């Protein structure tokens, strides 16, 4: 995937770039609006966009990209999490909205979900050994047999697989799971219960135990020993 990162904070931009490149994407950086507007003349698959830029509002980029009818996914990354900003961004055609600070795993999950939506129209299957997930239809199968998961467990599984082999902190998972509602740190018991249930269901269906506890601070989804 070819990704444009529009972010004026160099440290954060580098961090995102390093991460995305480690995931196998090709990245370009723009630290201000004029450069970003210039760069989007080329075709990108995804744009990771900060709104508060030194020389203007990042929404201009969304307007330009969507105005041209380019098949580009846009994820807005902003410190402002007010609903108005979100709605305005999404109305202009941005595909997702992420509030700072965020964890890379979250960006990664959103990115993958966006890629599926924009470039595969949601038809792509996610496969991990004996696990097959069809995101659009909320179907999970283990060795071809369907497993009955709740919406949250399903979401959690997709998140895990998107970030396989990465250490995911409890906080990060909690953030991801509670993104629908404002939550003031409530999440440890919450995610523990969900992960426990998900694990139980997968094991029962004959799936390998891929969810590893990392010293009690987080989890890792991996098939490596």
């Amino acid at each position: 995937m070819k990704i444009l990162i529009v972010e004026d904070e160099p440290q954060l931009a580098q961090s995102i770039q390093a991460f995305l490149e480690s995931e196998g994407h090709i990245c370009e950086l723009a630290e201000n609006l004029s450069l970003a507007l210039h760069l989007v003349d080329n075709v990108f698959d995804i744009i990771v966009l900060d709104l508060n830029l030194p020389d203007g509002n990042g929404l201009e980029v969304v307007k330009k990209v969507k105005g041209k009818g380019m098949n580009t996914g846009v994820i807005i990354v902003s410190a402002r999490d007010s609903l108005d900003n979100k709605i305005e961004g999404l109305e202009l055609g941005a595909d997702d909205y992420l509030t700072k600070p965020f964890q890379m795993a979250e960006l990664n999950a959103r990115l993958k979900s966006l890629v599926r939506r924009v470039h595969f129209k949601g038809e792509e299957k996610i496969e991990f050994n004996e696990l097959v997930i069809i995101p659009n239809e909320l179907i999970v199968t283990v060795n071809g047999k369907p497993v009955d998961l709740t919406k949250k467990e399903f979401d959690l599984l997709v998140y895990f697989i998107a970030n396989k082999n990465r250490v995911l902190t409890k906080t990060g998972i909690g953030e991801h799971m509670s993104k629908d509602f404002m939550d003031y740190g409530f999440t440890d018991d919450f995610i523990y219960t969900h992960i426990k249930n998900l694990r139980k269901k997968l094991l029962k269906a004959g799936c390998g135990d891929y969810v590893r506890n990392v010293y009690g601070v987080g989890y890792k989804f991996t098939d490596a020993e």
Partner: protein
Amino acid sequence: MKLITKSGLNFISASIFFFLFGSLGGYYFIRYAVNKFLNNELLEAKAYIDRAEGTGNYKLTFADVLADSIQGPASYREPFINDTVIMNSSTGNYEFYRKLTFDKTYENHVVRYQIVRSSAPSDVMVMKFTLMLTVFPVLFFLILYFVNRGSTRYSLTVFYDTIKKLKAFDVNKDNKLELMTSDIDEFEQLNEVFNAMDKKIKEDFERLKEYTENTSHELQTPLAIITSRLDELLQSSNLTEEQIKTVAGLMETVNRLSKINQALIYLAKLDNRMFKDEEKVDINNLIREQVELLEPLIENKGISLELTSTDKCETIMNKSLSHTLIQNLLKNAIRHNVENGYIKIECAANHLIIENSGSPLATSTDELFKRFNKAGNHPNSLGIGLSVVKRICEISSIDIQYQCTESKHQFELRFKN
């Protein structure tokens, strides 16, 4: 005590005091003047008698004279005047008289003269004067009192209006403090001062809110950098257990920091009245939705949940706020619950009760809704949820009450229609 009552009481007590002394003084003064007049008359009568030289050849129209010859020496050489009571022979009534007694010595005998002058007519006059001295001033002062009271009350309307408006003063409301104008300089000055204060307070408050929101936003970006860097570090393969724990702990701390920050931004937004659109919200539905969402947590703690709904419960408020409100209350009921406790939700028309078991409250009930006040020692609790609840209730005109007995905590909400 109201100013008007106080000044009225002062006026009345002072008046009673001065009336009492005034009318007493008046009475004695008139009494004295009348006696003086009567004495003069009696002395004049004595002069007539003196001139008659014992012949009894005197005629007095204004006084009666009794002349008695007495034995022994004259005891009243000097005329003696006193008051006396004499029975009227025709009516049998006792009447008051002024009497002058003197002895006059002739060649061989002493005659005692007693000149009496009825004081009844003058007594009536004295009574009338005294009555007049009492009644008229009392009437006069009563009228004065009521006029004064009325005018004071009228002038004080501005003052009371100011007090009423100041009582209703809310720094969060954007309407201006509109005080009545008065033709009284002192009140006008007072209102001017209050108006200026109102403006100043609101300006300061605005600036503070803006500042809070801006700082909070500015903080989010550095926090994002820290988070992403720590995340990178965490993914390194050569970390020891200790290091992983440290990094994960740091990430959690940063997350907590960011949560506090977000909560403050949220509160600032509430204060800035950013949630304006209101619509009809079905509380019953909302509770069912939120209960479903929080089900895993409820199960996790072994809490039994009882939801009774006797009537449709609807209110007009912002939808997003209603979600936050119910969710925070429910989360509060779960978080401060005991293992295998209970939550009881009762939903009636315009009325919602959320009750839960829990340990007794460590802080006072008043402190409960304050920011960063944590009941118990919950590591995941920021102590901000209930102040958000309070603020939402204020904004949406919902009356919220908290009651607590030993192990029972109850929130009661009354919605506007």
